[in-house]
């Protein structure tokens, strides 16, 4: 017993950053309750994250299990944790919305914590709690938006989320029954007994919900549309990427690709996800809703790299993830800036480009990154994705992958149609409305984000060094 406790203490030191983050968020809550100054809140929020960065230790390449194998860490996990923290830190630059008090930032921290534990969990219980933590916080944070319909968005989110997590839990229980353990790392291949497969597939439901893969993507548009921008940006990035990381872990741990049907199935789901994302985005008149459909398509792209075996896609996935995070950060920032000026629908953007050439250009760059055109990092992301798909195809001659490849290519054409509506409206259409005054700091931040997307393309060394040091499983 004592040994056990000592072990736990040792382990706790190893995960001190995660633990302290929980602690500091509670502290943040307490401090926050005493103040109403947004500046103080933001600075404490950033401080909590900085503390994490301070305590964070880059893990080794090999995988380490802690807390009786509940907790797992390796370089890929710690990289993503860093990514989450840095990403979330930048969210303070978003223009604040009314009534964003302490609870808003506290819930953001909760989402981050949930995601961090999600990717670290080896035990399904820990994973379940973590995923529920992010879900609950997401439901709540979405409902903190301004606007009347925000609760509708968050309520729908809750119903979907609750249902899918219940389905997932049912699946987990079945897996437990067969595997007799909840530790993913100890799972074994279990043949294709129907009930086991049923469990396996239902267990994936919650995960697919989190990463918004077809058919669990329905909640995305209405949720994103109404939520506060910083929160949406967070929800669209951090838990989603965490979900993908868990997916990597599960696919591997549950020996998923030992089943013949697995790759075709996922390929099909991805194809549907991508097509639905881009096609549905076409008819949107609301920019945010359009971007959220775009985000669904991006989920498909991200997932596409994960279904490739033997590390064919992992590196590309890392790149895509980083670039996706960066472009999400930027695009929601832009949306947020404009939303503050009540520029929400596409037609509200008409003629803005002539008066605000800089913002127009920045917006265009970001959208290019989302489409995947040079000279932005988005192109790199797409390029690596295509490389992975084609590289695997040349090895396996798998027609499913080729189909996926073709769909991905075509989806880029379609995504042009809708993403470019914004610059089209901004520059090519004219309106008589007065120009929009955007204050300098916001302009500056938006510009920096878009410059990052450009510079990252021109000088990719920095990202390369970081990503190269990550274990590729």
């Amino acid at each position, binding site marked *: 017993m004592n040994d056990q406790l000592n072990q736990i203490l040792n382990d706790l030191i190893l995960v001190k950053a995660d633990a302290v983050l929980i602690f500091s968020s509670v502290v943040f809550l307490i401090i926050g309750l005493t103040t109403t100054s947004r500046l103080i809140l933001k600075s404490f929020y950033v401080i909590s994250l900085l503390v994490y960065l301070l305590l964070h230790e880059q893990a080794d390449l090999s995988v380490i299990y802690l807390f009786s194998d509940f907790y797992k860490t390796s370089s890929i996990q710690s990289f993503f944790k860093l990514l989450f923290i840095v990403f979330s830190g930048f969210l303070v630059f978003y223009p604040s919305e009314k009534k964003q008090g302490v609870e808003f930032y506290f819930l953001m921290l909760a989402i981050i914590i949930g995601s961090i534990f999600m990717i670290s969990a080896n035990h399904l219980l820990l994973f379940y709690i973590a995923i529920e933590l992010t879900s609950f916080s997401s439901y709540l944070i979405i409902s903190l938006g301004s606007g009347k319909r925000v609760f509708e968005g968050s309520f729908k989110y809750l119903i979907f989320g609750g249902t899918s997590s219940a389905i997932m839990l049912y699946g987990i229980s079945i897996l437990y029954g067969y595997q007799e353990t909840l530790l993913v790392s100890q799972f074994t291949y279990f043949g294709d007994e129907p009930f086991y497969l049923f469990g396996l597939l239902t267990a994936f439901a919650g995960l697919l919900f989190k990463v918004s893969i077809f058919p669990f993507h329905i909640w995305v548009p209405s949720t994103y549309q109404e939520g506060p921008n910083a929160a949406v940006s967070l929800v669209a990035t951090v838990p989603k990427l965490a979900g993908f990381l868990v997916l990597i872990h599960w696919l591997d741990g549950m020996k998923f690709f030992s089943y013949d049907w697995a790759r075709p199935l996922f390929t099909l789901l991805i194809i549907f996800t991508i097509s639905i994302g881009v096609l549905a985005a076409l008819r949107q008149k609301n920019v945010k809703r359009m971007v959220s459909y775009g985000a669904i398509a991006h989920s498909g792209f991200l997932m596409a790299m994960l279904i490739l075996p033997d590390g064919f896609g992992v590196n*590309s996935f890392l790149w895509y993830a980083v670039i996706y995070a960066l472009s999400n950060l930027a695009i929601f920032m832009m949306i947020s800036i404009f939303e503050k000026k009540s520029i929400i629908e596409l037609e509200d953007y008409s003629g803005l480009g002539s008066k605000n050439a800089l913002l127009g250009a920045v917006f265009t760059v970001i959208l290019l990154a989302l489409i995947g055109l040079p000279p932005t990092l988005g192109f790199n992301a797409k*390029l*690596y994705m295509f490389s992975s798909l084609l*590289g695997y195809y*040349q090895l396996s001659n798998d027609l499913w992958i080729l189909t996926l490849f073709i769909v991905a290519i075509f989806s880029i054409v379609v995504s042009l149609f809708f993403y470019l509506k914004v610059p089209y409206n901004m520059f090519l259409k004219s309106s008589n409305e007065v120009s929009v005054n955007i204050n300098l700091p916001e302009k500056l931040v938006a510009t920096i984000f878009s410059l990052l997307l450009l510079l990252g393309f021109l000088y990719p060394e920095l990202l390369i060094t970081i990503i190269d040091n990550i274990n590729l499983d």
Partner: protein
Amino acid sequence: MSLLSLIIFIPFLAAGIILLIPQRFTPIFKWVALLSTSAQFVLAIILIINFDPQLSANSWGEIFQFVEKKQWILLNLGTLGWLSAEYHVGVDGLSVWLVVLSALLLVIGVLSSWKVTRRTKGYFFLYIMLSSTIVGCFVALDLMLFYVFFEFMLLPMFFLIGIWGGIRRTYASIKFFLYTLFGSLFILVVFVGLYLSVSDADLSAKLTEQTGIEQVVHTFNMVTILDGNYDNGAILSPNTGFEIAGIPMRYWAFLFLVIGFSIKLPIVPVHTWLPDAHVEAPTAISVLLAGILLKIGGYGLFRVAYAMFPDGAMHYAQPIAILGLISIIYGGMNAMAQGDLKRLIAYSSISHMGFVLLGLATLTSEGINGSMFQMLSHGLISSALFLIVGVYYDRTGDRKIENASGLAIRLPNYTFFTALFFFASLGLPGMSGFVGELFVLLGAVGSENSNGLVSSWVGLVAVLGIIISAAYYLWAFQRMFMGRFWLRKPEWEEAIEDLKPREWIMLVPLGAMVIYFGLFPNVIFDAMSETVRFFTDHILTQGVEYAPK
């Protein structure tokens, strides 16, 4: 920084300057643009002077001059190996003239946009960016770099047409953008396949040494690909047995590239963006579009599609030659039926670009030389023609052929230049248009005897092209410039005046060059004949070697 990098990056400097100057100093922008493009032009002249035409080569690595190479991306992709992309530029006989042509036309383009008054800052900023990417596209020796320039060119173009264009500018710009981008995706697919199939031995060895583990570095380096450093069993390696629908993968790749670049060239039946884009674009942009951007399609065919897939080039020589033939005739016939002078010229471009494709498809020395020459000469002639249309449009705001006649009486100088370029374009001997067409035809007819790839009837039928082009030009000239002086609207009569000094400055050098290169084409041929010789030999030998067995 080498000469080529300077040519590419000077515009960036200028663009920065433009960005820093506030909008209200409107007249400054054009001067900055003029300065920047002139600097590019001067450098391009230095380039051509220092270019060594005699340099003979036995491999692609030796043929490029003014090479500058820096590692850009070296990325571990896990199981896939490494990805390497370089900032790698250089010119050979194929590209050097295109660089010079671009530099010249860019200067002329600035001059012809002298009267742009609306949102000048944005206009010249985009123009300058365009000038950089255009040159970059011609000198890039790395597929990724090439693609980046190729794609990035679209955006400035999109906005330049879409904001400063004519009435249906939005439609035209979107059409242009989508068509070209659609094509470029085909190209991207092949590029991805290509780099995955090729590895750089030096870099691989270096990395293997560094890490101690066997490493493979896939590279976008064009030279490496051109020299055929294919991996065994990779998707686009020769003779690997990858095929879809019974057609080997390499053939697919070749066809994809042809589709991609043909859209840019353009070739019937993917040409329909061109007339719209031309008609709606402002004059300067039409000049660039016809003068340079189409050539990028042609250059891409030379440098990428043909040089990298010689087997496909040989296998599909006949169909592609026929495609070129169809373009020649179809474009010409359509030009005949156009009532809008600019549309007429746009369609004539399609016809003339058909010669480029035809010449290239023959894979004969004459055909390829002719094809290159045709690109250059068309660059000069068509841009001059668009300037000519612009001159008339500036004065009247109209371009309909039927709305004017007898212009020669009131505008003798203008008529002189019109006639000069019309006849140059219809291939009158003594002007550059003729030389290109002649050699293309020689190649097309001779191919059957020399390498047996293209039947001679294709070339013989293509001779129809010179009749067709004569018909529409003469007809248009007769209707618009001859006969009684008459204009549809009386107010035009006051507006109409002969060439202004600025227009003289633009037209005279073009006219002089058209005649000079028509009389002394060897000036151009000499600089590129070594490259073309190597290019042709390379395709014919490697084409046989790579062909599926």
